[in-house]
Structures are given as C-alpha cells and as structure tokens.
C-alpha cells in the first residue's frame, strides 16, 4: 500500500522547517538589540562592549543626572497631558462620526485620519513653521497688554504646551479610530431598550454606551500615551532649549557615545511602554457578549 504523504496546504507554512528557521532569525534580529540594551544597563563597565559583572549603579547615575531626569519628567508630563486631551477629543470625534449623518462625512473621516498617514517629518516641519509664525506674532506684543501671556507660558508645565499640542494633533486620530471601531459593534437596540425602560438620553449614554465603548477608550488612551512618550521627530522640531524630552535628550547624548546610564533610562522607558501596551491589549480583547 502506498504511503500517503499529506500535501501541505498553502497556509500550512508553519510546518516548513525553512520558514520556521527564517521566523526564528527574524525574531532574533528584532529582539536581540533590545535584550542587549537591557542586559548592558546592568553591566559594570563604561562601554557597551564586554560584560564585566552585574551592577545597578548606572540606574543610580541616571537618576542623579538632573538634565536626564528633567527630560524624563517632561516626557511623562507631556504624555499625560496629551493622553487626557487626545482621549477626550478622539472619543468625541468617534461618537460624532458614529452617531450622526452629515454631508461629506466620508471626507471628514478621511481628513481626520490624515495625521496618521502624513510622514512625521512633514508634520514636524509644518508644526515648526506654524510655531515660528505664532512666536513671531507673539513677540510683537512683548510690551503690550498680553505680555503676561508670554510669561505664563514660560512656566513649567505650560512651557511644554507647544509640544503637547503637536502630540495631541497626531495622536487623537488614533483614539478616534480605535473608539470608532469599537462602536461599530454596538447594537442600537441596547440604546433603544434603555430609553424604553425609562432612561434619559444622558442616562443611556452613561449606563449603556459608555460602558460599551470603555475598552476602546482605554486602549486609545494608552496608545496615545505611548505614541507621545516615544515621539522623536515632531518633538525634535518643536522642542526649545528649556523643553527637552527624553527621546530628544537621548539623541543629543548618544552623539557622544552610548553610556550605560542611557541604557538604564531606556530600560525604564521600555518597561513603562510595555506595561501600557499590555493593558491596552487586554482592554482591546473583544468581549464575548454583544447584545
């Protein structure tokens, strides 16, 4: 009897040894540098070349580097402010697009998603041009009645306003898209049932619509948090001498060689981002019940 060799289907590529090997190599190439970065943050050497024993002193060194800590604090502050505002604007946008019909709705949806597809470098330049124009215009009032306005915006954290505004601009569409996608699965009969049972419009929103879209809102918020935290390009164009963020600071430091305290600070950033992402994915997991 002839031995039957089951033919491999087109999507059974998980069984091909060559593809498994290829996948493994890809995995190594992607993650080895990160593993190395984290490992060498504990290396007792000034250079990231040879392993000379375990230490946590570079974490202490990073902690004691005032400018590094300041940049880090700025980054976190910007990320938090950006997250709060982008989440509110993004959610409101999603609700608006989901709920109402209006002329040129498709066009509005497309334009709203533009910041996602526009190359970051273009966004950066555009924001820089805008800010220098506004700055020029503001200086004209140096001695005028709104002089206090300029003063106010040089106080921390309001001096981060320019960067934050830019971050909000590119991250709120992500929130809107995530929340919108979630709302697509909403059963409108739930809303009608709530009203039929005596709830007002506002009660219905609070008790039925909001709980339903909450996973989307949280996922969108965490997404905008991580986007803001590690943004370099747009921030680079909008940061002033007083307003360094962590990625920009790291960039300026590595030009003089990568020292282990940068490894240490980067590791902290990775851990924060990782946690945010894990929570976001948990929240995004589709719920089993719909209506």
């Amino acid at each position, binding site marked *: 009897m002839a031995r039957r060799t089951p033919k491999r289907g087109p999507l059974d590529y998980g069984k091909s040894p060559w593809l498994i090997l290829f996948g493994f190599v890809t995995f190594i190439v992607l993650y080895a540098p990160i593993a190395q970065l984290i490992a060498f943050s504990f290396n007792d050497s000034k250079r990231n070349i040879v392993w000379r024993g375990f230490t946590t002193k570079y974490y202490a060194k990073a902690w004691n580097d005032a400018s590094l800590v300041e940049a880090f604090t700025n980054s976190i502050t910007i990320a938090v402010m950006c997250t709060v505002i982008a989440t509110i604007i993004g959610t409101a946008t999603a609700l608006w697009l989901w709920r109402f019909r209006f002329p040129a709705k498709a066009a509005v949806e497309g334009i709203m998603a533009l910041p996602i597809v526009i190359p970051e470098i273009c966004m950066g330049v555009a924001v820089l041009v805008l800010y220098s124009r506004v700055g020029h215009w503001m200086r004209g009032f140096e001695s005028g009645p709104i002089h206090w306005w300029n003063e106010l915006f040089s106080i921390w954290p309001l001096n981060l306003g320019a960067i934050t505004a830019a971050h909000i601009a590119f991250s709120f569409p992500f929130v809107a898209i995530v929340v919108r996608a979630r709302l697509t699965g909403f*059963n409108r009969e*739930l809303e*009608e*049932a*709530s009203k039929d*049972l005596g709830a007002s419009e506002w*009660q219905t929103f609070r008790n*039925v619509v909001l709980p339903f879209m909450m996973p989307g809102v949280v996922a969108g918020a965490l997404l905008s948090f991580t986007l803001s935290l590690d943004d370099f390009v747009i921030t680079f164009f909008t940061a002033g001498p007083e307003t360094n963020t962590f990625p920009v600071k790291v960039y300026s430091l590595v030009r003089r060689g990568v020292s282990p305290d940068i490894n240490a600070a980067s590791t902290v950033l990775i851990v924060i981002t990782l946690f945010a992402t894990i929570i976001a994915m948990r929240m995004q997991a589709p719920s089993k*019940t719909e209506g």
Partner: protein
Amino acid sequence: MTKPIISIRNVTKRYPGVVAVDDVSFDIMPNEFFALLGPSGCGKTTLLRMIAGLETSGTGDIIVDGQNMEGVPANTRPVNMVFQSYAVFPHMTVRDNVGYGLKVTGVAATDIAPRVEDALEMVQMSAMADRKPDQLSGGQRQRVALARALVKRPKVLLLDEPLSALDAKLREHMQLELARLQQVIGITFIIVTHDQDEALSMADRIAVMEKGGVRQIAGPEELYEKPHSRFVADFIGKINLIDATVSGVSKAGVTCVARGLGTVVVPHDGAASGSISLAVRPEKLTLSAEAPPSDSGISAKGVIRDVAYYGDVSNVFVTCDDGLELAVNVQNDRAAVGLLENGREVYASWHPSDTLILQE
C-alpha cells in the same frame, strides 16, 4: 362598554420613497393578546415602534389608556418593549438588567430588590440572577428581556418578533409560556410576527398587514375560515384559489363558471359580481377513486401529480381539466392506502359551503 387601551387613529409613517404605515386605524382592548401579522416589510414593526415612541415623525394619533402619545418621548410612555435581539445589557448581571428600568427612574433601592425578585420568579430566572448575559442561552436571555420589561408594570407589553431567534422546540414552548404569562399578569400584549402559526396559536385577535395597511382584523378562527381577501386567505395557512366568473346570484347562492369545474353554485350571503376567486382549504377536500354522486357537491376529475408524505397526513397535488391545480390534505388512514400514487386518476370533491367567495 370597556374603553380601548390603545387606539390607533389614521397613523401614517413615510420614509423617503416608501409608505411604511399607511393610514392605519384600530383599537386594542384591555387584556387582549393582539398580534400584528404580515410578511417582512409590511410595516408591522414600524407600527410597533411608533407605539413605543422609538419611531417618530409619523402622522395620526396613538392613544394609550386615554392619553395621546403625541410628543411623549419613549422613556415616559406607559408601554415597554421586548426587542428582537433581546437587547440585554451585556455588562450587567441578570439582576441589574431587570432592575435597570426601576433604577433610572428613581425608584427607591428598597423597592427595587423585591420587585426584581418577583419579576425573575415570574420568568423562572431566579437561580440565574447573578449571571452575566454571555452565560445565558438565547431562551434565557429572552426571559431576562421579558422580566426587564414586565418589572416596569407597563400598561401594554410590546414584543417585536420575540421568538424568531429560537429553535423550533423552544419556540413552541415559549408560545405557551407567553400565553400563560399574559393571562397571569392580565395586561395587554402586542406581538409582531411573520409566523402565522405563532399568531394563530397565541393571539386573541390578529391584524393582518400588507404594504403598510391593515387588511383584516379578526380572531384566529374567523381569519382562517372567513378571510376577506386573496392576500389574507393565502397568507394564513394554505388555500386553493380558483378563478371564476359570476353568472348569476340567487337565494341558493352565487352561480359561477369556474376554471376546470364548470358551472357551480356556492352559498354566499353577500354580493358578488364579475371575476372572483373561489377559495377552499386543502383539508376540506376529499379524494376518491370513483366519481362521487353528482348531488354531493363540487367535484373535479384529475390526475395525481405529486404526493408529499408527512406521516399523519399527505399533501397531494392533483392536476385537473383546464390546468386547474388542487392541493388536497389527505389523512393517512386505511382509505388512503393504494390511492395515493403518482399518475393515478382521482376525483377531488368538497362541500359547496366550504367554498369562500373572494371578490377582488
């Protein structure tokens, strides 16, 4: 005389390019189990949603218990609805779902708990009070939706195709249960359905709708035995429709020339003229191998074309003269043995008084 609990007066609802509900008027009495029956797109659900206040901008008046519902929003109307998808809130437990309608209208928490327990008791869901909807079956979710509406003590309960998502066995069970519940609670139920069996078995009265209009309102028996139009006759159960032309009206009935039957006399107490349809239910017909005595009624000679066997009965299709097709329900008793064969020549006959005259 009792006052109607719901009066529908000249209600019309237009969507762009289509009239969903077309000048409908009727009354529903207290404690009635009323069914809106019709094919999909006939406007029955739209009418139900208008009563609930979920569909606005129609014209005409909807009066619930003496109060005109014009301008009254859905959340303050004394009616509650069971939705087709059940619309059980997925993030709340069964208990919270049932209590929701009381909570949002500011009923004191101490009053909510016992009322919720009673409602859950009524639909036999007390044991599942702490479950989430995703741990319930379709039938159980529907019970929750029922309890959630009934706990509000509405004057009228509206049910939108409540059984369409259930399997055949469960549907039959829920039909009985809904009828029982309605008798226990003693409020008016209005059910929307496209399933004639459902309407016939549960409802006290049925409104048959077509293209936005009500074609006939009657009890199940009257609707089945005395349909007013071809549409109703055809929609409720199966019926043989035979084209005929009236040739005379006398005391004995209407004399007409019918396709494949020749001249027949049918008892009829109304007027009839021109071209009509003779309608007769398949179960009123009998088949025989020999020609029946000529004075026993209307009969037609034909050939058995097809036999569909259902165990207790068989549906037999007989092709007669002049292309007349008759469907006959035959009980599978001893008399039927040997008779039901394709190609066999038979006589189909029935009593003239079982014939309806449908003028259209």
